[in-house]
């Protein structure tokens, strides 16, 4: 039976869980903001730029993917500035939808009791493979 007690218990649980997760959410966001403002994000994307050709993207694509690690919206905003073809947009969006905001999500996943490192590594690998395959099978430029 659903009673007042159920609602109380649910709210109580939810607040406790949120407080628990806050310890992981705020530091992750802070780290990504430091990376963004100190210019390290640019350095990391410069390192990955030559490999972008494998998934059919221009070198600046690495920067967009890196901004996708801050929030998905900043990634989308960076994407609209670049002049991408329809095929490149599709590849970029799919790759970014698989591996985005990795720092925060890996922290949360580790907290919940799964292997975060395995999770992050397989997400990066999966996005690279997906980009490569999509570059092969999508017709056009």
């Amino acid at each position: 039976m659903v009673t007042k007690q159920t609602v109380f218990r649910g709210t109580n649980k939810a607040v406790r869980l949120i407080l628990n997760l806050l310890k992981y959410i705020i530091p992750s966001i802070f780290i990504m903001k430091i990376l963004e403002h100190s210019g390290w994000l640019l350095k990391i994307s410069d390192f990955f730029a030559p490999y972008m050709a494998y998934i059919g993207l221009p070198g600046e694509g690495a920067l967009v993917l890196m901004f996708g690690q801050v929030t998905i919206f900043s990634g989308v905003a960076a994407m609209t500035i670049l002049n991408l073809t329809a095929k490149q947009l599709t590849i970029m969006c799919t790759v970014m939808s698989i591996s985005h905001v990795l720092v925060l999500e890996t922290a949360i996943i580790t907290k919940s009791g799964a292997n975060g490192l395995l999770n992050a590594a397989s997400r990066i690998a999966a996005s690279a493979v997906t980009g490569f395959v999509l570059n092969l099978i999508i017709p056009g430029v």
Partner: protein
Amino acid sequence: MDWSKVFLETLISSYSTISRIVLIFIPLIVLIECMKDMGWLNKIADRSHGFTRLLGLPGESAIGLIVGIFTGVVLSSGVIMEIQQEINMTKTQMNVLFLFIGICHGIIEETVVFTSIGVNGLVILASRLAVALVAAFLYIRITRTIARFSAGVETEAR
């Protein structure tokens, strides 16, 4: 580096993330508690047994999987931590569950965001689902092979 900007943006970003989580999370957990009290959770677990067994997961994890696929990692991890206290999944099952959710989560919000800049949302959705399934199956296969191999080594040592 402009530290004041870093702190300010961290605050703003955290606030928007947390307020979104609070707005969805409390009603969601209350809803799940209600469903638990009415016995619907067991029904959902029974119904989705086919799909979760495909991934080698217990039927009770279906609600975590559904929440994860439709909302996001943060909310689903909260729900899964709740479930985990009751059914105690193994480490491998947790890894499979989060591998699937990690690759394929928040399909409504993210697909809408990407569709708004002119991308075919169906392509993204289909490839994410396919990749998540493939990754989960690969992980299950690899862990099984490793387990069989190490078991074989043990029997040989005897």
